[in-house]
């Protein structure tokens, strides 16, 4: 079953003066129940507008949105009552309330009583390592904890569909990894459906099954991470050569990404289309009497795919 279905969504922001801004230009996509989909795009791509349309915070100019089969454009309240959102990282929580009070309040907003959610609150406090801070005011928590609390508050609502906008923004490496693990478990263990928007490609690559890439109000790619990797495979290699070598001339013949000097060696990062060009480069280096210490085949990174998609879309 489709958890979310967006058809021909348009959003044009009218201006008091001057020309209106077309933020979303007829996009269509869907998210299946229990799926976790990444939403990528540079600033101004139309991601936030799309997410706000899904939450009912922005009125679409044209198009249909349905959340679990409910028309979210005309029956917004009914549709969004099964939706939780964590927008802009650690905001979305009441800074004067304690961790527990925040959780109780957000459960209450969904019409869930203290009795009903008591065990669930305990479980979330344990799961997000917030138990020790349950009586601490949210403003006194670290940023990572505030973000965990924001996510917990979204979860305590007990909705099936979650919109996460930059859930790892500003977190240190350890907390970011923890957060990714939590998010993954939400789909695998609890069957939640998640649409996750982030600028951090590693987060999207690590957590999402499928990626939607947007730019200038349009969807440029909508495929699984694996398929996108195949499509945009660029065979990136690192050649480590002994000594500091002058290799600038190689740029004329090969797609050299980077030449770097490290620990008395030269690192040459190059994209090679096929095995023929690979061997041609190896032969070339041998002809020049350069000692090859190591060759590493680098995995295609989400960041490169993203850049490629955006470039092609232009």
């Amino acid at each position: 079953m489709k958890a979310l279905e967006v058809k021909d969504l348009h959003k044009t922001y009218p201006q008091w003066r001057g020309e209106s801004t077309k933020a979303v230009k007829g996009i269509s996509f869907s998210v299946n129940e229990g799926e976790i989909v990444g939403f990528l795009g540079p600033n101004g791509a139309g991601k936030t507008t799309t997410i706000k349309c899904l939450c009912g915070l922005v009125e679409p100019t044209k198009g249909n949105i349905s959340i679990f089969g409910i028309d979210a454009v005309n029956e917004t309240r009914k549709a969004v009552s099964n939706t939780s959102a964590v927008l802009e990282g650690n905001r979305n929580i009441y800074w004067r309330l304690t961790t527990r009070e925040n959780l109780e309040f957000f459960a209450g907003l969904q019409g869930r009583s203290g009795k009903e959610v008591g065990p669930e609150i305990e479980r979330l406090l344990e799961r997000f390592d917030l138990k020790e801070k349950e009586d601490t005011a949210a403003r006194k928590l670290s940023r990572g904890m505030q973000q965990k609390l924001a996510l917990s508050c979204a979860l305590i609502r007990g909705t099936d569909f979650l919109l996460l906008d930059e859930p790892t923004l500003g977190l240190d490496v350890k907390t970011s990894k923890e957060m990714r693990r939590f998010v993954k478990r939400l789909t695998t263990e609890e069957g939640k459906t998640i649409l996750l928007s982030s600028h951090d490609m590693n987060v999207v690559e690590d957590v999402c099954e499928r990626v939607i890439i947007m730019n200038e109000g349009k969807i440029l790619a909508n495929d699984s991470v694996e398929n996108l990797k195949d499509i945009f495979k660029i065979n990136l290699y690192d050649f480590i050569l002994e000594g500091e070598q002058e290799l600038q001339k190689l740029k004329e013949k090969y797609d050299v990404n980077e030449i770097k000097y490290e620990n008395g060696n030269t690192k040459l990062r190059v994209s090679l289309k096929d095995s023929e060009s690979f061997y041609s480069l190896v032969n070339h280096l041998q002809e020049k009497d350069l000692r090859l210490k190591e060759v590493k085949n680098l995995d295609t990174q989400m960041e490169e795919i993203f850049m490629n998609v955006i470039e092609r879309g232009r």
Partner: protein
Amino acid sequence: MKEHIILYSVVKKYFIELKRYFLNTLMTMIGIFILFMLVFFGLRSFDAGTETLQGTIIGFAMWIFAVMAYSEMSWGLLQEARDGTLEQLYLTPSSFRRISAYRVLGSFIFQFVLFLAFLSIMMVVTGQYLRLNPGVVILVGLTLLSVYGIGYMMGGLSLVFKKVQAGNQILQFMFILFLVLPTITDHPIIYFVPISWGNFLINKMMVGGLTLLDFTLIEYGILLLNSFAYLIVGLIIFRVMEKIAKKRGLLGHY
């Protein structure tokens, strides 16, 4: 939908936040009380009559009540938007307007207790004793509906135009004018501006010793029409502004 749970959660949150900022609230109240004392003893030094002095006590208490009620609506909304929690209130099975109304209910309970406490302290300090008829709750409640209406109106405007703080401050002083209007004129304008007529009736009850049964249907009619007109217009304006904010993507952007 379990609306009563939403109501309970919103009111409970209001009181938790109040408790957390108790000292802040107390200091504000002391400041207001000092201001009242200056006004009251200033008037007394000019040989103002008992009715004027008692009217001042009620007017002052009503002004504080009105400003607090109004602020709860407009500043409360601004605060939510600034903190980034406004969006969350839109993601509930209940409507945002209803959640605001629940918060207003919480604030009304607190502010009414404060109103009575204030009146009592003022009476003891000034030696001017008013008649505290239980019916005053109904009159105060009805009178304040117009203030809540203005709160919705300004709250709605702040969703779209953001910088309405200056208007908020002007309105606080306008309330003083509205409250004293019945003492300086009997022009029909007092039927149309907010809180004037209500304050006039409250004065009749607390100074003149009237009860709810002593007012005529016309007097009640004017109060009801005035209060509900402001409330309904306020709600309509809020709804229109909310729609504009959603169209322009302004909801929650501060």
